[in-house]
């Protein structure tokens, strides 16, 4: 195992975050605070409790997930896309590193960033509403698994993407709608029955439901199902990466 290489990639990626601090940390935090002010404080005042929880508190897990997912995906996808784009990937390809060491470096860094942002948002939310975390270990597990899984997804996107547009389109057109429609701001049970069924095809529903359960013990789907789904998704992403590396798809000619 070439740990020096993993560390080099990881540190390089973290240094990139530091260079673009505003963009990578401050802006997701700021936008979350704005969501919070608008949905939680302004509109939330007029909304009754959802499943026995204040609306402001209810949306916190969904808000964290929204940032976590978009950050994990965009960081990991940009991280691997950039060397491909400017050509510096030659160095990765000619170095004595295995594919999984490359993944560990990039995905590890992207997941770390997402995690940090998630924690910052959680702390920020604590300033606005009362938070209660019923199952802290489950919460941490969900947080970590989500960061890793979606960083892996981002890595896949970064490799497959042929240009910057494609790189930004996926988070914009797929991730954000999935999170919004995944019960960030409402309970699935508030939807008409037909849409409740449709929603169950949205993987993010399981994430948010499980994550929210770890706070308030209310869930749209059983928490075991949530865990199962995220593990399944994790396995899918790993398989995709395994296939990409095995075939050299879009990396080695």
């Amino acid at each position, binding site marked *: 195992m070439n740990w*020096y290489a993993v560390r*080099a990639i990881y540190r390089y990626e973290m240094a990139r975050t530091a260079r673009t601090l505003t963009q990578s940390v401050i802006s997701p935090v700021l936008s979350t605070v704005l969501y919070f002010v608008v949905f939680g404080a302004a509109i939330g005042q007029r909304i009754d409790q959802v499943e026995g929880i204040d609306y402001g508190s209810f949306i916190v897990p969904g808000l964290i997930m929204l940032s976590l997912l978009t950050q994990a995906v965009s960081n990991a996808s940009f991280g691997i896309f950039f060397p491909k784009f*400017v050509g510096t990937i*030659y*160095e*990765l390809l*000619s170095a*004595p*590193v*295995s594919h999984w060491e490359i993944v560990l470096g990039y995905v590890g860094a992207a997941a770390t960033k997402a995690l940090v942002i998630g924690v910052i948002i959680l702390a920020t939310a604590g300033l606005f509403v009362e938070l209660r975390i019923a199952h802290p270990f489950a919460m941490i597990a969900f947080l970590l698994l989500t960061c890793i899984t979606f960083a892996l997804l981002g890595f896949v996107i970064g490799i497959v993407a042929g240009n910057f547009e494609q790189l930004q389109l996926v988070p914009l057109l797929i991730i954000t709608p999935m999170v919004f429609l995944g019960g960030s701001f409402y309970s699935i049970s508030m939807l008409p029955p037909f849409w409740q069924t449709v929603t169950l095809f949205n993987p993010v529903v399981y994430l948010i439901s499980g994550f929210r359960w770890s706070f308030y013990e209310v869930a749209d789907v059983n928490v075991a199902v949530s865990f199962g789904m995220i593990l399944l998704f994790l396995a899918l992403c790993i398989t995709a990466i395994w296939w990409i590396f095995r075939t050299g798809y879009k990396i080695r000619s």
Partner: protein
Amino acid sequence: MPDIVVVDDLSKTYPNGHSALAGVSLAIREGEILALLGPNGAGKSTLISTICGIVTATSGTVTVGGHDTRTAFRAARSLIGLVPQELTIEPFETVRATVEFSRGLFGKPPAPAVVERVLRDLSLWDRRDSQIRTLSGGMKRRVMIAKALAHEPRILFLDEPTAGVDVELRRDMWAVVRRLADTGVTIILTTHYIEEAEAIAERVGVIAKGRILLVEDKDQLMQKLGQKELRVELQTAVPALPAEIAREGLSLSEDGGTVIYVYDRRGERTGITRLLSDLAAAGLTLRDISTRQSSLEDIFVDLVKENT
């Protein structure tokens, strides 16, 4: 000297069906400076990229330091430093950070002293904390060399290191290459500049259309293949060559003062004796005689013409 890189019957056909390497075999000796000389599109970059692991071979094998580059890629690649043809470098990092990154990537523990020496050797130390995008093109190329040397490789591949580089920097680069060679690093550089091969290589491989046409010691190559030029200065200039001495390879300089005879050293007979006696018989008085070895360039042009 043992061979440090052995390429055996290597072929590469790109997905678009283009065959860039067609059965290349090549043994690179430890510690030598080998120039791969060939026109654009000959397959030089493909050959280097395949050895270094960037391009996957269609068939054939490569061993580096005895390690197969596919099955023992870690051991093989740790020995290699690569400076690719394109100037591709992370613009926002600092010089030192990117060199440290390269060292780590190649599995070496941090060593500030080594990084400092590499940067000093390449006259980059003063710019160590500059962002790379603020450097000139020549400096960026030095940074790429520094990156390739950061893990103290035993073999350095330089793919067209001086293409588009000004004369001064080219001299500097050659000096760097020689210094490295003195420390025992094996150096392989590709070029389509003959002077470059001529100036620094010990052996020269000529490659065209995905095939190695020959690999020779540079001096032997020039001796063996070189045409020579015999220049005979006349005591008094003549308006034209007398008809009775005309033969292939013979011409008269513009001012009429020198008879020039190009001959092939490889030939059974060079025809020099005959020519000299004919000149004397024609009544021409000789003042001086000199010969000139043809350059690699002449050799190269001939070779490529013969084989394409």
